[in-house]
């Protein structure tokens, strides 16, 4: 067991005039997740501390936070890597609703704008599955792994300065369908991405790639989307 000092940026607009830092002393094993420490505070010290979480092992995407200066999932970052002084704050570029919990609605709106669903209403004559070669399947393997945690979008300086930009997460999810050989709405998808608030806003800063807990090659996906826009002759 070791002593860990947890600094958390607290803000409850119902009660506080401004955000402020609070410090908590907790006992931790090196293998504890930062999420475990947040639970220690919430469950045994101060029940008003508020954050989202569910699966606690990096697959549901609920608990993206800015931890020690970088976007991470609190359930994937261990004390042995985070050290004995850990700072936790809400992800940036989105309104803080309470403590570590942000307003996700604009994020979902951007996601929905990209037509995030397969369009193909033709069913093969034999009633069986559509065929897709392993190579064609591989083209969207990486981007289909997105867990919609918003770590990438909230690490993007372009998004910080202008929230009308759809952001990397939305482009990743657009890519997943643009390169799916089964999809029939590619043209429409590319036109959405070619919008002034779409893919061209990316300045290849690579913050998103560093932030992604799934190690998705986001910048490569963005470049593939711009390439497809070029091939389709959309201006």
């Amino acid at each position, binding site marked *: 067991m070791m002593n860990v000092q947890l600094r958390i940026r607290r803000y409850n607009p119902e009660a506080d005039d401004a955000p402020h830092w609070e410090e908590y002393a907790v006992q931790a094993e090196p293998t504890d997740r930062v999420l475990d420490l947040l639970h220690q505070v919430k469950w*045994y010290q101060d029940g008003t501390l*508020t954050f989202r979480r569910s699966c606690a*092992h990096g697959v549901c995407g609920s608990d993206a936070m800015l931890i020690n200066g970088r976007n991470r999932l609190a359930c994937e970052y*261990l004390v042995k890597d985070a050290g004995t002084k850990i700072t936790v704050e809400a992800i940036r570029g989105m309104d803080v*609703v309470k403590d570590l919990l942000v307003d996700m609605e604009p994020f979902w709106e951007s996601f*929905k704008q990209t037509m995030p669903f397969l369009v193909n209403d033709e069913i093969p004559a034999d009633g069986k599955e559509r065929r897709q070669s392993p190579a064609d399947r591989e083209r969207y393997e990486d981007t289909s792994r997105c867990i919609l945690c918003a770590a990438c979008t909230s690490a993007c300086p372009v998004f910080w300065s202008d929230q009308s930009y759809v952001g990397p997460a939305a482009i990743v999810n657009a890519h997943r369908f643009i390169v799916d050989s089964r999809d029939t709405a590619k043209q429409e998808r590319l036109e959405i991405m070619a919008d002034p608030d779409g893919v061209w806003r990316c300045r290849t800063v690579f913050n998103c790639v560093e932030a992604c807990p799934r190690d998705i090659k986001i910048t490569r996906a963005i470049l593939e989307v711009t390439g497809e826009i070029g091939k389709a002759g959309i201006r």
Partner: protein
Amino acid sequence: MTLAARGGVSPTRVHEMDAIVVGAGGAGLYAALELKQELGPTARIGVISKLYPSRSHTGAAQGGVCAALGNTEEDHWEWHWFDTVKGGDYLVDQDAAEVMCHDAVETIINLEHLGLPFDRTEDGLINQRRFGGHTRNYGEGPVRRSCFAADRTGHAILQTLFQQCIRREVTFFDEYQVLDLALPEGPNGRVSGVIAMQTATSELHAFRAKAVLFATGGYGKIFKVTSNAHTLTGDGMAIPYRRGLPLEDMEFFQFHPTGMYKLGFLLSEAMRGEGGFLVNETGERFMERYAPTMKDLASRDVVSRSIYLEIAEGRGIGGSDFVHLDVRHLGAEVLNKKLPDMSGFIRTYFGLEPLTDLVPIQPTAHYAMGGVPTDVDGRVLRDAAGAIVPGFYAAGEVACVSVHGANRLGTNSLLDILVFGRRAGKRMAADLADLPEPAADAEAEASVKARVRDLLEGTQGERPAVIRAEVQETMFTKCGVYRTEQLLTECRDEVAELRERARHLLVDDKGSRYNTDLGEAFELNFLLDCAEATVGSALARRESRGGHAREDFPERDDADWLKHTFITRDPAGGDLSLTYKPVTITKFEPKARTY
């Protein structure tokens, strides 16, 4: 401003819908999609969920979903049916399992049509691999039946169904916690809506609809070591149970053999499906002794008990309470391409390298075979005789159809949510014309309001986390993999005591904005109700079968116990009563179960 300072809880807001789905995992989303497809775009279909849909625990399912497509070798849905019945230790209702295994093929094809990113064979078909308990020709040896998307099949299913629900413009009420059912005619009448608290505001909302589906998942958080998400607190089981409706087969809880040591979350059975195996302190592949044919791919209850016995006999690693999973020989290609998430978990949480290191694992509480009793169309049963509760449906882990009997086979949980979520949606759509107009349950609304007010105004009591930790400990040690009369009796009494203590809970947060402290207090009470039903059912069943292993009654007893448990609590007096329902046997006569 605190809610109390504003003069109490705000007035209830009312929503009128055609049908309501509670829970946004695979079962709920598939049902909502079917409802939209059957009823058209103007139908008011509301999905209410504690979480954003993409956070649902369906997304954590890893290895695959079985259907006898026969894409890589000969297979037949009847073989799958047999495996399901045998895997469930013959407590499976065979007519229901027949529906599931038969519908599996068409359902998986439909998911592909909806866009699911299945792994493919060289010919471009859906690829398939081996999984525990799935055999060719009625038990001869392993068969490739599991369809998969790498080792994140659940994630792919959840995403695909969420995506198509967006396309069909399903209405989502995200981050609403359902706290009660509307039973406007009293406990013996129909269901006509739900009462929910919006997490963002703590406001109460009454949702009125002719048809309500519960698809809220399981209750693994009653155990200390579990694969389940923090949010799996049995809300959808506890709510009808409180209103006097029965829960079926709650004593059957599956412990998955390969939980990550101490953490509890899973290393997929697919690691053994691809060739991994378990070893004890001496380096022995001990499953060869317990299950000579299927070895490490015997059904989960068998493997979990074998691990326990190895540990009990001192052959845990270093004499401790875990054994090793060996996947080193699978090679980089399999570990990184077919099992990338699993390999990542091992690296992230243990700092170990699966290519060179042995991985510490222990059985972890994973899946509730029991739940809200339903028929094969998701209609909720009022009693063991089979009467229906009009307007009320359940599907997925919250429900008990029963297709899993005493032990669920790997991959059949995803199949269950898909087949029965979809069937429930179709049935609801068909039933709407005949169901009466919804009505309010003023009593339930007032009672929820009073409970919220009590928690917000209360200044004395215990922290929910303290009581939760105690119930998790007692359930894990006394109502876990192995059980005895004495342990279960102690457990029952401790749960009763904890329920009494939980009448007075201290909630720190008195505000109205995202009061998750308040939400957790409600969840604790749901957990305690599920614990009561589980231990109550377990104490009565004096035999060992599937996920219910009694050291004092080690044999399966078909003469007395080939039947389903129905447990109810009298909403007025609190007395528990147990009734039993015969198992439906249509084809496979019960016989000794060996792997």
